[in-house]
Structures are given as C-alpha cells and as structure tokens.
C-alpha cells in the first residue's frame, strides 16, 4: 500500500512541479525527488521479494495504509523543514527585523 500511495504522491508532485516550472520557488521539485526515490526503492523491494518469496505483491490492510499515510506526512515534514530553512519568501528576515 505504501508503494502505491508514494507513487501517487510522486506523480502528483511531479505534475505540480511541471505546471509551475521552471519556477520552483517552493521547492516542489525536492518533494518530487524524495517521493520518486522512495517509490523506486520500494518497487525494487517488492519485485525482488516477490520473485524470491512469492506471496502478495501489494500489502493492503489497515497497518499498511497507516504506514503509507505516515510516510507521506514524513516526506511533507522534511519538505517543510527544508522550505523554512531556505525561506524563499524571506519571511523570517522581515519578521525578525520587526
């Protein structure tokens, strides 16, 4: 389930990035790279595990869904932290001047 939702997040963020490109003021491109990296790694994980052990390719249950949501929240958190550190709108500079 986390592979499906992460792949979905990767596709959505890529579309958002492309719509705004070449402007990437809010670093949506970074978020997209994060999701694609995880998607590719989980894809390799699922394929190799399926070939070696068999069983279900996708794990679809409540725990897997909660994990998928948590993974997306973590990626968003990393992105927000990077965004606030880089502060592309210069918000902190203006706030601290006051």
């Amino acid at each position, binding site marked *: 389930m986390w592979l499906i939702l992460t792949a979905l997040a990767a596709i959505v963020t890529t579309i958002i990035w492309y719509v705004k490109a070449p402007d990437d003021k809010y670093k949506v491109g970074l978020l997209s*790279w*994060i999701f*694609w990296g995880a998607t590719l790694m989980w894809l*390799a*994980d699922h394929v190799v*595990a399926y070939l070696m052990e068999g069983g279900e390719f996708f794990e679809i249950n409540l725990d897997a869904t909660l994990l998928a949501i*948590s993974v997306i929240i973590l*990626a968003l958190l990393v992105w927000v932290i990077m965004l606030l550190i880089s502060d592309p709108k210069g918000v902190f500079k203006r706030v601290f001047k006051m």
Partner: protein
Amino acid sequence: MACFLVPMTEAIVTTVVQKVVENKEKNTEVKHTETTGLTWSRKLGWLNKLLWGGTILLAFEHLWHGEIVPWPPFLTAMENPADVAPMLHEIATIGVSMAVLVTIVWGIIVIIADAKAKGLTEIKETATKGVK
C-alpha cells in the same frame, strides 16, 4: 531488515563526490558544460535527492516494522545471531537492487536532460547564425 543501508552508503559517497565536483566547478568557474548546459554537480544533486529521500522514507518504514531501533545495535537482526545471515542476504539482494534501480533511472534522466539541453543549445546557435 536493513536493505536501505546500501542506498544510504551510495548517498554518502555521491554527496561527497558532488561537493568535490561543485568545488572544482567553482574554482574553474565552470557555469555550465559547453555541450549540454548542465553541470555535473547539478546532475549529482538529483541523484543525491533520490537516494536521501528514499533512504529517509525507507528508514522510517523499517522503524515502523521494528526492524531498526534508536539504540545500539540499531538493527534488531543483530540481536539474534540466527538473523544476521538473512539480513546480509537481504542487503546483498534487495539493497543492491534498490541502489542499482535508482542509479539506472537517474542515468536515464541525465541522458534525456543532456539531449534536451543539447537540442536547445543547437536551436539557439542556429537562431543566432540566422540573425547574423
């Protein structure tokens, strides 16, 4: 069990390589390569983002499944000697596959980006010659 250690190791290496290349490009004042318009530090930056992004999310997944813990020896498989061999097998198979797949996809992205940038450079050159 600990498959993300392979892409993490690759990420550490490529981050160091990117910093070295970036410094070299700054020292030689290379703004962009003449043929493609894309610097190698920028291309390596894409690989770093893919690898670090994937590593962070996979580490969280391993934490969720209780395969890693925030205290030594960090990998739960290390606590039981019987689990060490399967862990190493998983690192050698799944971990290496992850790193290889990410690197191949990055390589394809670089080839496409170079081709696009080269095409744009040629169009610009043709347009400039046409104006002259």
